[in-house]
């Protein structure tokens, strides 16, 4: 059974073909819009939506060609239907619905967060329940994953997402966009101990995150070091980048340690810590979280970096998992700009859709 997965909720136009048997990922094509957004120093929603429309059908055709199949070979089509930048989501959902209608195959509306949450099961054998740290440019949450469509949120950011802290930090340090890889690159040459930055909420009870204070502290440090034109010396920028990355890593580890204790108590059958989302592509953070998992006796699972950042394969896989359970959607499905994985969890006022 072959499933087409479409992802258009941020700045990657992506399509993939995934199979339930044999080699799972038959094609995984990601067109990054980085060049379109770089002049603005971040993702501009309307620019993204226009680029998705221009590129998506070509990306789908390329995914089918790379998989060596025709559109007639598809058993179903899945698309990210939220949460995310809604203009782009509309494009992906409508192309998916159109393919479903024309080919008379099921359409599956996938929650982008569920795509990330289930992605480790695409890459390796992993049973429910597991503890998930989902950290991306738009989200930062700790979740107990009980099954497909069954999530319990243990903690969430109350302001910025972890990836947002990287992006805003990189912009502040003049390191460019996207911020995650830029900070990671600069941090390699930096001394994380030179500028001690705060670890918001670390040591406090609970599993929530906060990164906005960290951003403010970084700005103050950077302003103190900048020359008259506002520019930073390369070694100062590197040291600040290393300090930022270390602070984010310590925050993630501290809050995840709390979540592990909670998860252990409430889901004694679970024995894995999974990290997913674009932030999980950061090698230093993976290492730190892997060490935490080892210390607490949990298996550490992180999808390969290409499946951590946004991609169509994880959407196709989530679609496949839902299809197996008969969870298909109508062609009247309305895309959802806000779509929490755990609808029972209380909203975090400062985080908006990030929670």
């Amino acid at each position, binding site marked *: 059974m072959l499933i087409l997965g479409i992802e258009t909720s941020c700045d990657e136009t992506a399509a993939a073909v995934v199979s339930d048997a044999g080699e799972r990922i038959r094609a995984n094509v990601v067109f990054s819009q980085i060049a379109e957004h770089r*002049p*603005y*120093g971040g993702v*501009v929603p*309307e*620019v993204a*939506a*226009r680029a998705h*429309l221009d590129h*998506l*059908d070509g990306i*789908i*055709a390329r995914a089918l060609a790379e998989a060596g199949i025709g*559109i007639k070979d598809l058993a179903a089509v899945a698309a990210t239907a939220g949460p995310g930048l*809604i*203009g782009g989501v*509309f*494009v*992906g*959902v*409508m*192309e*998916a*619905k*159109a*393919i479903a*209608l*024309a*080919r008379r195959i099921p359409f599956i509306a996938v929650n982008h967060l569920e795509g990330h949450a289930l992605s480790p099961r695409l890459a390796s054998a992993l049973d429910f329940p597991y503890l998930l740290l989902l950290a991306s440019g738009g989200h930062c949450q700790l979740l107990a994953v009980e099954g497909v469509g069954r999530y319990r949120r243990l903690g969430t950011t109350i302001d910025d997402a972890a990836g947002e802290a990287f992006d805003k930090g990189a*912009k*502040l*340090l*003049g390191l*460019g966009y996207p911020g995650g890889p830029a900070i990671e690159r600069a941090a390699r040459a930096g001394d994380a101990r030179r500028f001690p930055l705060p670890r918001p909420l670390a040591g406090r009870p609970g599993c929530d995150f906060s990164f906005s204070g960290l951003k403010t502290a970084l*700005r103050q440090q*950077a*302003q103190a*070091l*900048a020359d008259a*034109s*506002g*520019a*930073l010396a390369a070694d100062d920028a590197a040291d600040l980048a290393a300090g930022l990355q270390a602070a984010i890593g310590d925050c993630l580890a501290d809050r995840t340690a709390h979540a592990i204790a909670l998860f252990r108590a409430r889901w004694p059958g679970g024995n894995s810590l999974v990290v997913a989302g674009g932030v999980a592509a950061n090698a230093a953070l993976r290492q730190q979280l892997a060490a935490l998992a080892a210390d607490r006796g949990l298996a550490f699972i992180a999808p390969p970096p290409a499946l951590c950042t946004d991609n169509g394969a994880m959407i196709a896989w989530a679609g496949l998992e839902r299809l197996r359970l008969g969870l298909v959607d*109508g*062609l*009247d*499905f*309305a*895309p959802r700009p806000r779509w929490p994985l755990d609808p029972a969890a209380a909203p975090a006022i400062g985080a908006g859709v990030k929670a």
Partner: protein
Amino acid sequence: MVSVLAFDTAGSACSAAVLRAGTVQAHRFAAMARGQAEALMPMIAAVLDEAQTPIEALDLLAVTVGPGAFTGLRIGLAAARGLALAADRPLLGVTSFAAVAAQTPPEAAAGRTLVVALDSKRREFYLQAFGGGGALGDGALVAPEEVPAWLPPGPLLLAGDAAPTLARLVAGRAPDLAGGAGLADAADVARLAAATWRPGLRPPPPRPLYLRAPDTTMPRRPAAGR
């Protein structure tokens, strides 16, 4: 005997139609400012079903490309490009200006220049002039203060959902109103597309007609001095 499926979601409506041999076989139209992403596919399924026309039996797909609401015109274009890809059918784009102008045949304009004025949801108008059975120049985004200079000389007949607003703005020209809701309709889109169809037609994917650049602000300075 050309068979066409056409649809529109670019303005404040959602519509779909199947045309065969010059006759509308099935047609749905609903005024709506939003909700086209939910309404469109069931509407397309309904007209195909009612016209007893499987997608494979169509010669041509047609869709409005705007101008209109950015999200709305992308809903139609994305659906159209998905259908064209999945059913391997040619796809033609028709502007919302042409679709609205088609509701006023040349003889009805009778010595007046037809100006189609579409709602931009902001203070500006989307405008295009038509005469002698065709467009007179390109469509444009026109600010109210630029409208008098933009309008062609001579008697005017205004159409489109922004026609009443435009008529008040240029009341001194005593323009006539074409009347009706002034919204594009898939039935007209189908007829316009059918008129340009010929066997073997394989146009490139239709381009959206936004007429307005995205709202963006350039960063003042990418470094720490802010």
